[in-house]
Structures are given as C-alpha cells and as structure tokens.
C-alpha cells in the first residue's frame, strides 16, 4: 500500500486534494488576512499599450501617489506581478503580446481596463488596426472610463478592485 501511495500520479492527486481542503479550511479564519495582503500590494506589469500611459505615469507622481496603495512599478519580471492595467488602445499587433503577458502571470491576477479605448475601442473604434475593447481577449475586472481618465479616476478604479478582492474567496 505504501508503494501505491508513493506512485507519482497518486501522490500528486493526494497533494492537490490536501491543498484544496487546506484552502477551504483556511478561508474562514485567514481569508481576510490573505486578501488584505493582496489588496495592499498590487504590482502592475510594465506594459504600456497606448497614450493613457501618460496619465498612469502621472498617477505615480507625487501628487496622485499610487504608491500608498502598494502599486509600485519597480521590479524586473512579470512573474512577480499580479495586475495588468491595459492603458489605452490595443492594436491588432499588440493583442497577441498582451495575451502572452497575461498568460505568463501567475494566479491570482487582475485586470483593469483603463481608458475608453480599452473598454470599447473608444475614439478609434472604426480604425483598421484597433480591437474594439480588450475584454474579448482577457477577462477584465474593473473598467475605468475616461479619455484619458484622470489619475483620481484611476485611483477610484483601484479602490473598486480592492473592494472586489476583499469579498472574493482565496484560491
């Protein structure tokens, strides 16, 4: 029987079942703490899609400081990030790269669609090279409208995302 247990496939199944039970058990007592940790350390990826990136840069400035929310853009790899802010228009050339970046990020990950162009195509909806909205390729959590949205609007969007994470089960 022990040999049976040490068999790799069975061992993997056992570990994952243990993991699921552990998560379910921890959800009630520790879910709040884990979510609290995730809320206050959302790290965005260095992917600027189009012109809204200027307002995102301004939001990191000293006046509208997003660093107090834990959103720091000072790291190297996207394997350590959990937030993609799609800043602006997504063109057909950029779309596969956006999907690749999204796939490479580890779970849990969140997406903010910033700007009118990321929501529906915006001002450029009839152009030949623009996707009408980004929610066709990646699942979006929060939509932040504006062209470009003011930094305060972006911060409000982040706070909405925080509310959403607070009430979600940990995975």
């Amino acid at each position, binding site marked *: 029987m022990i040999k049976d247990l040490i068999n790799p496939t069975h061992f993997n199944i056992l570990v994952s079942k243990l993991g699921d039970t552990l998560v379910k058990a921890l959800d009630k007592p520790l879910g709040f703490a884990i979510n609290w940790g995730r809320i206050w350390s959302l790290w965005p990826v260095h992917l600027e899609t189009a012109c809204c990136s200027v307002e995102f840069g301004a939001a990191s400035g000293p006046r509208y400081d997003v660093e107090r929310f834990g959103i720091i853009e000072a790291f190297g790899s996207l394997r350590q990030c959990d937030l993609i802010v799609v800043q602006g228009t997504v*063109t*057909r*050339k950029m779309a596969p790269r956006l999907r690749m970046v999204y796939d490479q990020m580890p779970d849990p990950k969140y997406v903010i669609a910033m700007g009118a162009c990321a929501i529906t195509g915006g001002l450029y*909806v*009839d*152009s*030949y*090279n623009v996707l009408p909205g980004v929610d066709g390729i990646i699942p979006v959590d929060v939509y932040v409208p504006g062209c470009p949205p003011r930094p305060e609007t972006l911060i409000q969007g982040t706070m909405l995302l925080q509310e959403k994470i607070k009430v979600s089960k940990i995975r």
Partner: protein
Amino acid sequence: MSSEANHSNNSNNNFVIISNEFNKNNPEITTTLAPPNSRHDHPLVSTFSSSSRLASPPLTKTVGSPGSPSTPLRRKEPEPPAFEKGIASEISANFGQMVQIIFIKPLRIKLAVEPPNIVKVATFLRDNLGYDHAESVAGTDYPKDDQIEVIYHLGSYSREDLAGQVLSIATRTNRDDARLPTLINVYKSVEYHERETFEMLGVYFEGHPRNERFLLPEDWADIPPLRKEFRIKGR
C-alpha cells in the same frame, strides 16, 4: 495626369504658375493636384505675419471673379518671390524639360519629375543647391487618374539662406504596377519613410534594401490601407 500632358505640350513655359491672366492664354492647363475633372484656382494664401525676410508683396484677397467656377474663397495671385524664383530658374536651367515647376510660393517650391529622372534631379539638388536631407515622403492615391503620386519634401540644414525653405519633388506612377526608383542612396533619411509608403500604398521602391511590412501587424492580409478602395469599418 492631364497637367503633365499639358506641360510637355507647352514647351515654351517651364514656369507654370496658375493665375487668372495666365489661364486666359492657355485655359487647358491646371497645375493643381485635384482630380482633373474640375478646374480650380490655386490658393496662394499664407498666414505668415509679415515675417518674410524676402520682399514679398502683401497678399490681397478678392472675392468672386466672373467666369470662374464657384468656390467660396478666391484669391488673386501674387508675384512669386524673388529668392525662390532664383532657385527655380537655376533648376530649370539645368534640367530644362525634365523638371516641371508646379508652384512657387513663399518658402515652398514644388517640382514634378518623371520617375527615371528623379535620382539625377535629387543628386543635383543635394550637391549643387544644398538641400541635404529629406524631411518626409508622402504617397497619395489618385484613383481617378489611375496613378499614385509620391512626394518628397527636402530641406536644408547647412545653408543659412535655405533655412525655412522646403522643396518638394513629386513623381507619379501607375496604380497597377507601382514601381519607383529609390532615393536612399541620395538621401539616407528616406529609408523608413519609403518602407512605410510601400506597406501603406503598395509602391515598390527599386533599390531599397527592405521593402517590407513596417507598422502593420505581421498577419496583415488585406490591400494596402491608404488606397482609396480600402474603406474603414462602417463607412
């Protein structure tokens, strides 16, 4: 294009500047780039506020002239300024019939050249007249003439007196098999502009090292976007 045919017929005049008086002598000539079906005057208004170091006379405006097609604003055409006229006469003295001068405005001169001669003209402009770089290359699709026009804007950084001048050279080629010689050996600065014109309009530049897709996505499978038959969504 009808205007080019008329230029070659009109061997006496290398300076073809549109004006009301001129039109009376030879009403066939239209030297604008508009579709040749309509005959319009060339607008020569500039909002430069008296800045010219050239002694150009003030521009006058007259509204409505008898016998002209109705356009909202019409201008009486001033004399072409002396400095630009000097440059233009030097060019036409050297090339004669190969180069047609389309207009001479304050700080803007435009020439029309046939594709086989364009490299020679550009080399002359670079070596003798001091136009040392090309600012941009624009291609325009004229489906009514069945031609594509490619226009090079040349400027000068080294000569003081040519500081604000922009000389444009225009060539025309057929729409179906659009090929033009490249100016990359004369002006290196046209490299990316010609590549973009290739992908946006389908004009093949012979001699250019990379006639490839530049700005469009890798899987672009449609006709070149700046052609007039390419309609954008819903329009």
